[in-house]
């Protein structure tokens, strides 16, 4: 069991790093779907091995929500953006990748006391999931448009979901349901906002928000 969960968490982190590396929007979206599916698989594995049938339901919801509904909404939002982001000098994926590597180290350092305190069979994956969350937040920070922010936020949420799975074998169903609802609401709201902003301004570049400053 330990090997399987560790492997899945590791693959999740690899996919996360691939999202940081990829520049094109359809590619990033496909990788996000892959990340979500990996997490659903993780939930299924833990659910079977720990004897928690509730987690199978959670996995089904994850597939439905994060691998189908939300990506569809994201695809609608991204329909107007160019397939390849316009190249800008000084903006390659090398620096973000380097920072992401640093964040993985930070995640291991921060989680040292947690790992020392637990004896779960899944403890090896905990720092990996935490690194996924931190990198998600980092993607959110460096996002150049509203889609980038939203994708980062969703990766962050995925990381936290993975962390909860590995550290506690999943949150109580009620909390999990609440979080899923929140995420869905945010994506739907953002869809409305993004489509409207694009209609009004022909761009969803967040730099233009600066002009609103009083």
């Amino acid at each position: 069991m330990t090997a399987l969960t560790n492997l899945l968490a590791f693959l999740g982190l690899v996919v996360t790093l691939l999202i940081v590396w990829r520049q094109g929007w359809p590619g990033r979206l496909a990788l996000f779907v892959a990340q979500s599916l990996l997490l659903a698989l993780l939930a299924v594995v833990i659910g079977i091995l720990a004897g928690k049938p509730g987690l199978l339901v959670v996995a089904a919801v994850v597939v439905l929500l994060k691998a189908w509904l939300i990506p569809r909404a994201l695809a609608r939002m991204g329909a107007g953006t160019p397939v390849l982001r316009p190249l800008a000098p000084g903006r390659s994926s090398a620096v973000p990748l380097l920072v992401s590597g640093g964040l993985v180290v930070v995640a291991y350092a921060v989680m040292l006391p947690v790992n020392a305190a637990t004896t779960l069979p899944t403890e090896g994956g905990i720092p990996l999931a935490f690194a996924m969350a931190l990198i998600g937040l980092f993607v959110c920070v460096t996002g150049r448009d509203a889609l980038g922010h939203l994708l980062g936020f969703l990766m962050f949420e995925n990381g936290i979901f993975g962390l909860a799975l590995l550290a506690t074998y999943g949150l109580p169903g009620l909390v999990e349901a609440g979080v899923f609802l929140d995420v869905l609401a945010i994506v739907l709201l953002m869809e409305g906002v993004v489509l409207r902003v694009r209609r009004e301004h022909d761009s969803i570049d967040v730099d233009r928000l600066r002009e609103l400053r009083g």
Partner: protein
Amino acid sequence: MAALAYVLAAGGGLAAALLGLAGMAGATFTVAAPALLPLGGLELTLDPLGGFFLALIGGAAIPASLYAVGYGGGERRGLLAYNVFVASMCAVPLAANALTFLLAWELMSLASYVLVAQSGDREAVSAAWVYAVMTQAGLACLLAGMLLLGVWTDSFRFADWSATASTLPPAGAGLAFALLGLGFGAKAGVIPLHVWLPLAHPAAPSHVSALMSGVMIKLGIYGLMRISLDWLGDGQAWWGIAVMLAGVISAVAGVLYALVEHDLKRLLAFHSIENIGIILIGLGAGMLFHLASLPALALLGFAAALYHTLNHAAFKALLFLGAGAVLHATGTRNMEEMGGLIKRMPWTAAAFLVGSAAIAALPPLNGFVSEWLTFQALLQNLRIDRAEQNLVFALGIAGLALTSGLAMACFVKAFGITFLALPRSEAAARAHEASWPMRAGMGLLALACVGLGLAPTLVVPALVRVGADVMRVPDPANLGGWLTLNISGEFASLSTVAVGAALLAALALPAVLLAAAGVGRRRRLYETWGCGRLVQTARMEYTATAFANPFKRIFDFFYRPVAQLDIEAHPESRFFVTRIEYANPTHSVFDRWLYRPALGVLHRTARRARLLQSGSANLYLIYILAALLALLVLA
């Protein structure tokens, strides 16, 4: 619909008053819903002090709601806010833990904010803004103080605070007292935290002004009484000194501001500050006596403060309702445009006269009794053997005496300029009497003023029982008979019934003597002497500005008045004056020396802090990431 809502509020007020009276008599109950909210959930409990304030709120809500039936004129806006306001005020003295208290407190502030801003004009909105800022700053202080106490005593229940207060270190208890005192002082309108009061009270509808001034600011007093004598134990000497000094400053400065104010409702609002000061003088005396182990005197000071709280609620609510009737009839709050209203609004004038005499502390009305009690408490200060405290008491005596005299002068002005002589404007000449629900509301309060003045022998023992319960000292049983009130043994005694009878006799005596001497009662109507002029107009009357001018000159160090004379002459010759305008504005020392510098510092800090706010969403997200990482690494 509107009338129904106000009747509902009046009914709720009646129930609250009865429940409060039962609480004063010793009835207790507790309702708790601990699971509803964190930090101990909701819990209400009734004890004598809470019962007193509950009865006060309920008792004031009855006439105010009755009055509103006539005053509102079917206006539907603000009905919900009004009922929420009354209900949340009732919940404040019943709250048994910090969370319940703060919820009720904030609900009360929000509802009153809505009511202040209700009319929607520029003045009301800006007044509501100042009110909101001050009340939220006060709430921040309360929150900080209560959280500190909660952490130190490991409980958010007030009963636990009282039980463990003696174990707190003096510095910690002092810090909690200072924080909570600032919060409650801001609500009570203690100077220099008073700035919202003269703005917000006039802007609100008059029945709301009556409740805000009559009872809402009293909940600040309620909080100060709790922290001085109950939650934080017996306290320290500087607490009592601070309370008394704050009282002296509020009383004197409040009445000085009122003297030069010509907006009738603002004038009343400044008098609220003055009366809060008088209450605090009594409370401060009670605290100092309590600390000096003189329980009888401590009870006297405390009972004087409670009595004045009650009296001020009665006469200030009455005066605000009267001012509201005048505003309703003339459409202005400026006294310089009134005059002669006594002939058109006799009922309102009579009620306002009773209120004026009561606030000016004329016997046998209620204001006299509580100020007399306060004086008696202050005058026995030599039984404390501490020179610095005796000095503070001396300041209290001097301040209270000055305040009483100035208040008298101020209400001669308020009543005389508003109701006597000839109407100064067209609106005043066409004024009409208030409708009967308004008159009923004022009548109830006028009766209360007379009753509380004539029956101190019934009221004072009840208040002393409340005080004995709060301070945990035995209740002195003997305070005199049914007619005469004795305090501190035989130190002083008072019988307002006898005083009233003597005054009545003194008024009736000349008439009786003249009748006995056989002098006829022939009425002669003649014009007032107008310095030889043929035509008499309202322009020749004494104005409010003229009345206030001598005071401005005497206290010019406080008012800092500026004379503005604007003369417009005929173009042909400067000896033919076409127009003269005279204005004599004053400046608030607190605005100039306290609030302007404080606001300046705030603005400068805010400008620096704007560097953080670049407008870039990425930067804001970086703040979040950095904060998260810092917390994770440091924790």
